[in-house]
């Protein structure tokens, strides 16, 4: 898994490539990267799943932990461009009740300012 970070209008965008799974050992986990941004005072986080094929329970845990850390500081974490397969599983597991998921990055970015 490779995670690249970019910023737009005070929103931190994590572009994730590969699969978010336990066996893919990286220097820093997704949650650690999100927490670093939160420690820097960032409060708007967008996860770009365009190149994410699949995730395992570790990946789910990382996304949930990132959401909780962000939200409990008064911030917002949202997801964009999730695959249909993943979206279906998110629906069945009710994760769509927790996360705001967008098809389009522009709309996702706009939504941070609409609130």
């Amino acid at each position, binding site marked *: 898994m490779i995670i690249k970070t970019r910023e737009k209008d005070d929103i931190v965008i994590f572009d994730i490539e590969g699969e978010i*799974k*336990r*066996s893919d*050992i990286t220097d*820093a*986990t997704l949650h*650690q990267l999100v927490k670093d941004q939160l*420690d*820097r*005072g960032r409060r708007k986080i967008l996860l770009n799943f365009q190149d994410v094929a*699949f*995730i*395992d*329970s*570790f*990946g*789910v*845990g990382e996304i*949930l*932990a990132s*959401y*909780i*850390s*962000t*939200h*409990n*500081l*008064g911030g917002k974490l949202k997801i964009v461009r999730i695959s249909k397969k993943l979206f*279906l*599983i998110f629906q*069945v*597991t*009710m*994760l769509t*009740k*927790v996360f705001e998921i967008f098809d389009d990055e522009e709309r996702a970015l706009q939504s941070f300012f609409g609130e």
Partner: protein
Amino acid sequence: MKEKRLHRIISRFVDIRPDEAPTAVRVFFYFFLITFPAYIIKPVKVSLYLSWFTNARLPYAYLLTAVVIGFVVVLNTRLLNRFERRRYISLSQLFFMANLVAFWFLFKLHWPWLSLLYWLWSDIFIATSVTQFWIAVNDIYNPHQARRLVGFFVSGGLLGGIGGSILASRLAKTIGTENLLLVCPAILFLSLAVVNGLYARQPKEKVAEGRAAPGEKKKPTGYLESFNLVRKSRYLLLLSGLVTAAITVSTLIDFQFNSVVKETIAAKDARTSFLGAFFGVVLVVSYILHILFTSLVLKKFGIRVVILFTPLILFVGAWAVFLFPVAALIYWAVAVKGADKALDHTLSQAVRELLYIPIQPEVKYKAKIFIDMFVNKFASAFGACLILLFYTALKFSLKQMSFITIPVTGVWILFAVALNREYVGIVKRNLKIKWQDADKIVSQHVDRNLTKLIFDTIQSREKSSVLYAMNLFDLIQKEKLTPELRKIISYKSDEIRAKSMDSLLDVSGGSFVPEIADTVDDQELDVQVREIMALDAYQSVIQDRIEEIVSRGQTEADVDRMEAAKLLGMMVPTAPVVEDLSRLIIDDSPEVAKYAIESATRLKKPEFVPLIIRQLKNAFVHEVATDALIDYGEEVIETLRSRLRDPQEDVAIRRGIPDILGRIGTPRATDALAQELAGGREDVEPELIDALYKLKSNHQDLCLPERTVLPVLHDKIKKSYLVLMEIDKLLLDGKKAPLVKDLENSLSRSLKHIFELLGLIYPFEDIRKAYQNICAGTKRSTDYSLELLDNILKKDLKEYILPLVEDIPFDEKVRRCRKLVRALERVSFNEP
């Protein structure tokens, strides 16, 4: 430039922001120019009345005013809603100016009843003008601003009153009492100009509060509607009760005072002059008290204590009358009436007006009109009735009238105590939660363990039909294999290339692919699997196979070890083969370790605990290890505690332990956390605070001893001050923004911890609301948060915390923190 100079001058006396200075000065002069003529009109009113009537007729003047004022309230309310504020106030001032000229003319005709009419008119003028002024203040300012500036505004009123009194005292004997009335219209004209200037500066939306939007049909607010508003609100009823008791006491004291003056000074102009001088001196004393004490006292003691000052002093004053001989009663009368008026002009007035501010705008104005005018005068009428009953009918002496004053003062005190409780409630209601606890949001919608199992099941389909089957089996056992889920995780048999269950038994043959067959009975499957596992033959064969997999370690494929780890969790805890799980728990592969830890959770054998703890430092299985230890529960608390205390232990492990203890959440776990917090373990302090905060969030009746929390709080506050001072130093040295930004973020984290610590010893929801509104609220809600903290925190704590969160200029904040950090070094929050 001018504004800066103005601010520099005023800020010497008042806590005022630079942008507030011009408006505040206008408000100051507005009040000045109302009270100046009022204090000419007042001595004239009393003196003329006492010239034509005896003191026994005074109650009739009080009663007449009380009766008529109700209609005036209605008219005032209608005008308030009909016209925009500025126009309404201007028109009423013009009306009063015309009346004064008319009275001056009519007094030349020497009609006795005119003095009664004039008495009535004076009360209407004074009540209306002062109410209009406070309505203007409520239009312009929010509660926290108002509390800072109210002292400054009241100064304007006091100075105006002093000016008017001096003029009345000096000119009464020279030009005559009646001619004093001609001075007032000129002063009111200036007031008109100031009010118009004031409203011209305000944004329209601020002033539009409490009024109907343009285009909307404007409903007139009737007297009945105002009454109903007050009747339905406990807070407003108590406020009405307080005002009633206060005014009744004031009326009784006023009667005693005027009676003594009438008996002591017979000549009209001399009496006017005396009254002018008396009011002037009272105002000077009030002004001095006000400058030196009002803001200081309010800041030091808060509204809830200051509200009791006046009734307690008058209670003592009422008793004191019995110490004075009749010939010296004028001294007692001057002292008690002076105290009543001085306190009324300063502390009582400020407190009463501040008590209105937390009320919703749409209710505030209507209720204020009703209370200020009607309740006020009803109380005067009540006082008048008490005088008629006890003095006129029952022939009480002037001294004996104090026996009536004393119990009424007692009632005043009771209302003040009740209002104290309600005030905090109303401030809280103005604060909304900005964001919900995310853990709770997730828990409400998502079964985390099931979700993870589903993802693992789907993923394992690609890896191993054995793992896949085992995961399916778990879903079946949890009775969670819903039709939707079956559809999503079902697959075609020719897609599978993973090893089959047969390979585990080392039996050659085709792949067995477990499909999700609707025909398979879930319970039957469960029974069959357990029966197989219970067979001795099975145990013997499987033990050999697993030992072979485990001993080969990393040379064996990960998937084989994953299957073995998963299988071991399905065994009975007493099976000898289960011991092999130990090596799998600390396997290098996170996936193998994950399955092994999950299996260890099912088996709950104590020997696995140290190995699971070891895995807390592995980011890829940290969450699984955490969940496992939480599942172990009480039996791991002491082990976790000893690891937490061990300075040699890996810090990543130590940092993971507080969260586990917090989520175990039993009293023993809570005690362990509290004791570790008190133990001063700085390297894990943030984690300890977070864990305790989460515990309190789920168990709000949890009570932590202050002696545990206060020293940590003391330390955090001090560190915050030091960070602020460091930021100031960097800014002065012109250092780079990133350094300053890092420190600001560090300060922000400290503040979060300060509020989390406060949440452990104060009402959780109150502290949470206050913190959230300070971080993310509007200016108004931030001010309410500060007001709430001011009312609920203990004096020594709020003194040190409020400067960190108040909206004051940065250099002022640093200055205060420099002063406080020295004080903090000498003080401990645990000291009584």
